[in-house]
């Protein structure tokens, strides 16, 4: 008689809890507030002639492991967290070459390569301790760019949080139990949308014009000297491709040369009889696609009036040797003159400029140097660079390795001096005379703080062309700077053509969760269950007596039949 209402009550409570359960399951809203949130930068994803390259996925939700994972484990649902300092090249090659399944890869880069790294920049680049790291990173970058990885790959910078996580993961791995759903550990989550193609990536070339002094009415006949630098970059992580040396140094040098000559040209007495054309071109890593488009947009007369063009490429981290790359034979009169000008000035400044001749193969689509685009249109041109040999396609285009840390502004100042002085000798016809126009402690001296501030800006601005919008603040800033120094600035817009297709989603936030294992949850359930049972028994004994408790269990078969 006493039991009946309770049974009824119990059934009601059961019903209630079922309803509650349904509500819980229906209203499952995912809340992502992890303990640690880290900025991560995705490996580039692109197609070349329809062939997929780079990381093909963006979203990530897997357990983490370190390089100390036990062999023969299935890593297809595991993210490997690999610090660059411990990177084993053979491992990467093995995994990428054999395309073994992985849940994902996260590379931890030392803060040295971060563009937020403020300390120790410009300390001379030949730092012994960082050189091996640089080489490893450069090698890794090339491998990753040319691989097709069907899982997400991200880069992150070391910091205290992620270091602590890494230490924990290592400890876990060393004990021999890789983290899976049953053993707990860390879970890495990047919620990102599926990467989409960048439709008709824009390229914007910026040109500035400093008109020479017209002696008579035949201003059209004034010859022109072009100074050109390509400003965009390419690297394994588009959001980290700041390219301090390639080609940040070239941009800085171009801007400083423009500034110096604008000072000279503002006074009619010192205005030269040459027009100066400054060009900041886009599409550099893709066979100088932007340069090509820009040159083709020129008026025929303008193109013919160009005496010669000097292209600046990577001039920020050399010691005592620069190279002039030409594609016309060195016997050519113009080339001879250029080389003479440069090497005589270089001699006075105390270093060497060498000439390197490389013929153009018209049938080869690869354009290794910017001047080759000029040469293909029969314009005399040369590239000034610290590199002695032409880089391969997508190589040394301002990727991960090319950080501010390895570029010295004093070197750029020397380069600027060389360029400006050589140009001035050509323009004002002082060949063979030892006259320093841009001598130090004059108002025409190269301004190191101007160089430094621009270099700092460039070293914090990722500039991969497909990810720069049409009116990107960076492009506008360059335009404004050229407007300050030259008379006439034009933007030449076009679309990046060719074999490349790019995909967006270049940066994301990585949420790191510390998760408990299923076994822990089961154990907890067990503990809680026994706690409740003990509590129940205790309460029954204290309030109703031991006999009552025993009587509850005395007739288990009949109870079971009733509830069933």
């Amino acid at each position, binding site marked *: 008689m006493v039991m009946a209402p309770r049974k009824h009550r119990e059934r009601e409570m059961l019903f209630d809890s079922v309803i509650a359960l349904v509500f819980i399951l229906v209203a499952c809203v995912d809340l992502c507030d992890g303990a640690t949130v880290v900025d991560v930068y995705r490996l580039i994803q692109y197609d070349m002639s329809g062939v997929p390259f780079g990381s093909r996925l963006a979203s990530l939700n897997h357990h983490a492991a370190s390089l100390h994972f036990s062999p023969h484990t299935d890593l297809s649902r595991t993210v490997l967290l690999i610090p660059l300092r411990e990177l084993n090249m053979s491992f990467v090659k093995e995994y990428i070459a054999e395309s073994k399944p992985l849940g994902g890869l996260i590379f931890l880069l030392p803060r040295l390569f971060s563009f937020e790294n403020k300390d120790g920049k410009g300390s001379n680049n030949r730092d012994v301790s960082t050189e091996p790291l640089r080489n490893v990173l450069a090698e890794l970058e090339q491998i990753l760019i040319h691989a097709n990885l069907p899982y997400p790959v991200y880069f992150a910078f070391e910091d205290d949080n992620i270091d602590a996580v890494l230490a924990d993961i290592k400890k876990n791995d060393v004990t021999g139990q890789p983290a899976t759903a049953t053993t707990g550990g860390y879970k890495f989550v990047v919620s990102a949308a599926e990467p989409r193609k960048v439709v008709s990536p824009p390229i914007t070339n910026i040109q500035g014009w400093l008109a020479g002094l017209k002696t008579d009415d035949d201003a059209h006949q004034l010859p022109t000297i072009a100074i050109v630098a390509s400003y965009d970059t390419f690297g394994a992580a588009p959001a980290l491709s700041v390219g301090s040396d390639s080609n940040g140094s070239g941009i800085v040098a171009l801007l400083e040369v423009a500034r110096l000559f604008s000072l000279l040209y503002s006074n009619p007495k010192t205005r030269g009889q040459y027009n100066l054309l400054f060009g900041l071109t886009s599409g550099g890593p893709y066979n100088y696609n932007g340069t090509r488009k820009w040159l083709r947009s020129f008026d025929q007369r303008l193109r013919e009036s160009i005496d010669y063009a000097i292209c600046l490429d990577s001039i920020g981290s050399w010691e005592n040797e620069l190279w002039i790359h030409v594609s016309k034979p060195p016997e050519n009169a113009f080339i001879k003159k250029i080389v003479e000008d440069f090497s005589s000035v270089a001699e006075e400044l105390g270093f060497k400029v060498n000439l390197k001749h490389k013929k153009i193969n018209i049938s080869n689509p690869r354009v290794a140097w910017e001047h080759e685009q000029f040469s293909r249109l029969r314009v005399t041109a040369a590239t000034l660079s610290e590199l002695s040999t032409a880089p391969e396609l997508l190589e040394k285009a301002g990727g991960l390795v090319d950080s501010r840390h390895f570029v010295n502004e004093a070197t750029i100042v020397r380069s600027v001096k060389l360029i400006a002085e050589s140009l001035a000798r050509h323009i004002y016809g002082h060949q063979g005379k030892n006259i320093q126009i841009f001598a130090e402690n004059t108002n025409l001296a190269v301004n190191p703080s101007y160089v430094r501030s621009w270099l700092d800006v460039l070293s914090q601005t990722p500039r991969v062309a497909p990810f720069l919008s049409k009116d990107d603040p960076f492009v506008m800033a360059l335009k404004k700077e050229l407007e300050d120094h030259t008379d006439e600035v034009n933007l030449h817009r076009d679309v990046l053509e060719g074999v490349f297709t790019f995909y967006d989603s270049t940066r994301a936030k990585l949420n790191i969760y510390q998760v408990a294992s299923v076994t822990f949850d089961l154990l907890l359930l067990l503990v809680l269950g026994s706690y409740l049972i003990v509590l129940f028994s205790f*309460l029954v004994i204290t309030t109703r007596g031991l006999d009552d408790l025993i009587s509850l269990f005395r007739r288990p078969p009949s109870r079971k039949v009733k509830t069933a």
Partner: protein
Amino acid sequence: MTVFHFFNCAILTFGPHAVYYSATPLSEYDTLGTSIKAAVVYLATALVKLICLATFLKVSESDSFDPYQEFLKALIGFIDVAGLYFALTQLTHRNISQNHKFQAVGLGWAFADSVLHRLAPLWVGARGLEFTWDYILQGLEANANLVLSISLAALGSLMWLRKNKPKTLIPIIYLSAGIVATMPSITRSFSDSLRYLRRGLGWHFPKVVGFELFTSLVMAFISWQLFAACQRPSV
């Protein structure tokens, strides 16, 4: 997996209430109505408390410890006692013995408190991927709170409902009732102000919960003894 954790924490937080109800004679005498009434009174009391807090407390911009504000908070905490008084004495209950009445009221009170204060954080937090001990500790806290609520209801029923109690015990009853009544405000202000406690006393959440559990058990024992002592002459 995380839903699993949520269920574990929910069992820890709300399980003891159900067990208490089904294991004690409360379920036999069908005192659910009394518990629900007590819960409603609790909700009303909580509303009044919130209004008082909003009216009399100023929002402190800094994390500093302001004794006056804390005192005010504790004072507002005593509104609970008024609510409990109302639930015990003014409400018309079905004909159940005093013995069961205070248990039912205490149970309803504690359950409403748990639902109001712990269900939402549990729902939001324990289902996340991140694992923390916080929700398990919070469940333990709910247990301590259940014990405290029932002790307070027991002492309240001794104070307000029982007429013939031993004279010598009266001051002790009032003293322990005072202690039990202040306990929630003490611990709540502890857990609310973990920020400066962590710096000041160096107390962490586990320690606070341990303190709560310990004091609640001690107070429960004292109230039980008092109740038994008051029972004796009438028997």
